[in-house]
């Protein structure tokens, strides 16, 4: 008895009870669809998180963080130097495994204003041009600072599109893109000239939506006063904050905002951030060791610093994804299992109905193994058809999910989830068929033939 015939007879059996078979398959269909949907949601989350991480500077970015000195150095606490330009220079000279060192001097409580409009940017700091590579910025218009701007502490700035949107108007609102190069804005009351503007950073999904909107043409004007609909911001925080950035030359930041000193009249030489990029991720460990050695020199052995790598971030993303996958997988597996129980139930009912037929088959020469395989294949065929329908249904399911989830985490269908779903259904189908098949195979032909 070859497999083709067995499958054919199985299909015939299923076809002769279309509605019942469909109901039976429904468990598997929903199970597979929920498995694929779950995997798609998780994949979307993963994509969103990774995109945001890249927006924040990529995996090879290392943050130098200040931390309280260790307990045995408590008495040196007041001598801890913090992050200063000395560190930056030393790292650049003596740590070859560190590819990039980017100092940032943040301006506290910065407010940018123009013609009476005020706005608080997310980031406002004095930087070197290394910051472009460090934070993965792309300049769309104008130029970035050069060495002369730095040397002469010129009052120039480069802004993100978020600042432009706030002070000059959004392209969506004014109908054209304003490129405010050469315009003057005030940062904490001091005039600065805009010499460059970054591109608009957004997640892939937002980019797609924007492109779609652009294709649709101008939107119909909405009646009533101009208003923003809804709180919060679209896209991720990472993209939003990256767009709301104002950079000025580092030396300018020092001269205009720090050198005058604080209440005590002493200027604070400390930087807000020193960001590093390692030459290669494989060399992360030795590079950090090298940087530590250098910094221990400049800090006179006071260990008031630590490193924060995106590696941790990546790890935590992976861990979150793994957890989500596990819990989602268990739920989907349970629903598939329930589907399998449904199949077993129906197969048991079905062989009870067909005792006489099984008796006939045995009388004309079917062995127990033939019957066993027949029932098993039937169960497998039900589950496989269910699995394939489930895969088809998952497309629709994910379409719906795409409408429900935040745009940065758009669900993405993964082929792997489909393979796993189908394989698991096959296993469930075979397992569900075992007991009915065994029962059918053991039927005594004489009694089965007499059965009414």
């Amino acid at each position, binding site marked *: 008895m070859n497999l083709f015939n067995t499958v054919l007879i199985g299909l015939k059996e299923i076809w002769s009870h279309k509605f019942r078979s469909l109901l039976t398959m429904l468990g598997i269909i929903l199970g597979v669809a929920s498995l694929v949907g779950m995997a798609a949601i998780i994949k979307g989350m993963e994509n969103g998180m990774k995109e945001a991480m890249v927006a924040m500077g990529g995996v090879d970015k290392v943050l130098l963080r200040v931390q309280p000195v260790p307990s045995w150095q408590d008495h040196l606490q007041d001598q801890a130097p913090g992050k200063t330009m000395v560190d930056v220079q030393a790292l650049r000279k003596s740590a070859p495994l560190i590819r990039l060192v980017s100092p940032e001097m943040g301006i506290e409580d910065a407010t940018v204003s123009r013609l009476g409009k005020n706005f608080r940017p997310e980031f406002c700091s004095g930087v070197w041009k290394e910051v472009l590579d460090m934070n993965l910025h792309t300049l769309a218009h104008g130029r970035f600072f050069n060495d002369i701007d730095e040397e002469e502490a010129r009052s120039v700035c480069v802004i993100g599109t978020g600042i432009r949107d706030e002070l000059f108007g959004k392209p969506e609102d004014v109908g054209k893109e304003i490129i405010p190069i050469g315009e003057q804005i005030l940062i904490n009351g001091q005039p600065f000239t805009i010499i460059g503007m970054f591109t608009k950073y957004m997640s892939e999904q937002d980019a797609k939506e924007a492109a779609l909107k652009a294709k649709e043409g101008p939107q119909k004007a909405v009646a009533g006063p101009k208003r923003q609909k809804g709180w919060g911001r679209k896209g991720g925080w990472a993209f939003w904050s990256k767009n709301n950035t104002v950079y000025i030359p580092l030396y300018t930041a020092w001269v205009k905002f720090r050198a005058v000193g604080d209440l005590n009249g002493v200027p604070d030489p400390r930087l807000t951030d020193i960001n590093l990029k390692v030459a290669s991720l494989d060399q992360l460990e030795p590079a950090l060791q090298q940087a530590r050695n250098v910094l221990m020199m400049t800090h006179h052995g006071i260990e008031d610093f630590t490193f924060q790598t995106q590696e941790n971030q990546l790890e935590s993303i992976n861990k979150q994804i793994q957890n989500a996958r596990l819990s989602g997988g268990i739920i989907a597996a349970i629903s598939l299992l329930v589907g399998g129980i449904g199949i077993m139930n129906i197969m048991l009912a079905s062989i009870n109905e067909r005792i006489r037929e099984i008796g*006939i*088959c045995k*009388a004309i020469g079917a*062995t127990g193994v*033939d019957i066993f395989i027949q029932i098993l294949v039937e169960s497998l065929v039900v589950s496989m058809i269910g699995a394939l329908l489930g895969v088809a249904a998952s497309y629709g399911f994910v379409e719906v999910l795409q409408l429900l989830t935040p745009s940065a985490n758009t669900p993405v269908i993964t082929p792997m989830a489909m393979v796993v779903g189908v394989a698991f259904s096959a296993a469930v189908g075979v397992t569900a068929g075992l007991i009915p098949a065994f029962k059918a195979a053991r039927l005594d*032909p004489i009694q089965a033939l007499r059965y009414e």
Partner: protein
Amino acid sequence: MALLELRNVSKIYHLGGEEIRALDDVTLDIEAGEFCSIIGPSGSGKSTLMHILGCLDSPSRGTIKLDGVEIQKASTSQLAQIRNRKIGFVFQFFNLLPKLNVVQNVELPMIYSGVSGRERRERALKALELVELGNRLKNRPSQLSGGQQQRVAIARALVNDPKIIFADEPTGNLDTHTGEIILELFRNLSRQGRTVMLVTHNPEIAAVTPRRIEIRNGKIADKVDARLAGLDRKVAGAGAAAAH
């Protein structure tokens, strides 16, 4: 050597500690090409004998040789293969599979014996020609009359070219006229040299066969009851035709 040799065959059932001898020490030979009927009242062990002859069941005691091979010790799956290749069954209630059409029903035994698709179709068609149903190939059993269904069942029994054909009350569910047609079909098969065994309690059918075996209380009767064998009109000679 006979086609089927039964030696001291007994079949014993145990029902709640009580021993029931459905067959009691039966010795019987059936030669190739014979056309005979097994007769007997209900509960006489007629069906049990047929089940054992037809390899649907194994005896409790005694030996059976089919085609020179001892089969009383065969496993259920070995018995299934013997049924498949050497025995054809025709039942009272036709016992066709309702979801398969006529050709597929006839092809079924060959599926279990592993005949290739093309040969299966060829042989099924030939068998259906033989029972004059070559024009109803795609019909479902439920679309056929009783006589036609029984002819399909006969085609199915013939298709693996069995050594012996068992028919259990083959006309029991048919009207007289159709029954005669079916009976004529068996007679033709017998003329072609096939071994055919009819199990019946109908004297008129038993009268058709040259040899009659009567079972009474699990034993083969020495003398065939003339009325049961349908011979009451020609009582003389009944002994000659009886079981030996």
